[in-house]
């Protein structure tokens, strides 16, 4: 058995009201240490108000090769955007 610490993905809430955003990753033996390490590695200059850590093996990601089937269908659906509709200037913002 390898004695390597697991990899953790780190998410930081930059300021009140914002979503947590992925900022990077780090190694730590457990969740508690991962939070402490994340605090030292990623918030030394007051970059955050809250930290989430998730063990990297628990992150399920879409496959890059699926990009076409996943996202191309929305490219042709221009009518989902408000700018598709011609709204006369006279009626005000809408």
């Amino acid at each position, binding site marked *: 058995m390898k004695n390597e610490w697991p990899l953790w993905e780190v998410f930081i*809430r930059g300021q009140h009201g914002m979503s947590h955003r992925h900022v990077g990753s780090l190694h730590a033996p457990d969740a508690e240490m991962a939070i402490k390490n994340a605090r030292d590695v990623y918030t030394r200059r007051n970059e955050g108000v809250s930290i989430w850590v998730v063990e990297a093996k628990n992150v399920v990601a879409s496959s890059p090769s699926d990009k076409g089937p996943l996202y191309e269908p929305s490219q042709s659906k221009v*009518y989902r955007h408000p700018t598709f509709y011609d709204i006369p200037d006279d009626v005000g913002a809408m």
Partner: protein
Amino acid sequence: MYAQMIKTAGTSVKSREEMTEDERKFQDRIDADEKIEPKDWMPDDYRATLIRQIGQHAHSEIVGQLPEGNWITRAPTLQRKAILLAKVQDEAGHGLYLYCAAETLGISRDELTEDLLSGKMKYSSIFNYPTLTWADIGAVGWLVDGAAIMNQVPLQRTSYGPYSRAMIRICKEESFHQRQGYDLIRACAEGTPAQRKMAQDALNRFWYPSLMMFGPSDKDSVHSAQSMAWKIKINTNDELRQKFVDQTVPQAEYLGLTVPDPDLKWNEERGHYDFSQPDWKEFFNVIKGNGPCNVDRMTARRKAWDDGKWVRDGLLAHARKKAAAKAAAAA
């Protein structure tokens, strides 16, 4: 689509002296425009009121799919059909954002659904009105979504972080909804005399129910005062209704349609339109379950929940079986 007539938990706004130390700190954070996040301490009444409000908002998004879904198969062109389908799909998405925000407060999705189906929780009164003609689909986008936007835009600044972030996402998508509705009813208003009549009829039927969406006047309500102090309600119902009328009347005039209110007139002194209140007796009757479509809406929701049970159970059983097989293979 949003919440109305939310009963605020608690009795009234507490003075600073009446507050506990925790409550004072909490109120200070809200007054400083800090967002409250799921793991933060919060008063029980704040939590309970938010669950009611966000839950009702979510239910409205879901039930709101029904009157529009009614016309998907009968849209007059393929393009209008694709647009309507995309819009109804957005409403489902909005419901999901909001249910997830409510779940961060410690209630489960199934509990929320069951509270809707048992009648303990409500959805907006507007969805108890039928969509009788194609022009009604235009009126729903233009007026109903227009009224919802009035309420949702200020809620982007609400004090509860997950709710605020859901509102920001929803507002971004809501603009398409209102514009497609106006575009649709404009096509009717600029069409044949019969189509024009249909547009006027849709405005006639949806005008007052849209005004009801803001709820009765709450300027003297202690419950609203507490919700406003917590910043989970930003404006009074009357303020929002006035704003909606001021914005919508010129849009109706552009279409050459007449707002069905003989007393509607511009008040130079106030800088606002004077207008007639909707029939609040009718509103309370609809809320009580006696609107034209209450029974249909709830029947449709119950049927969807019951008919979907074997799918929910089956997929969960499959996932559990796969997880067990994987664990067995790893052992």
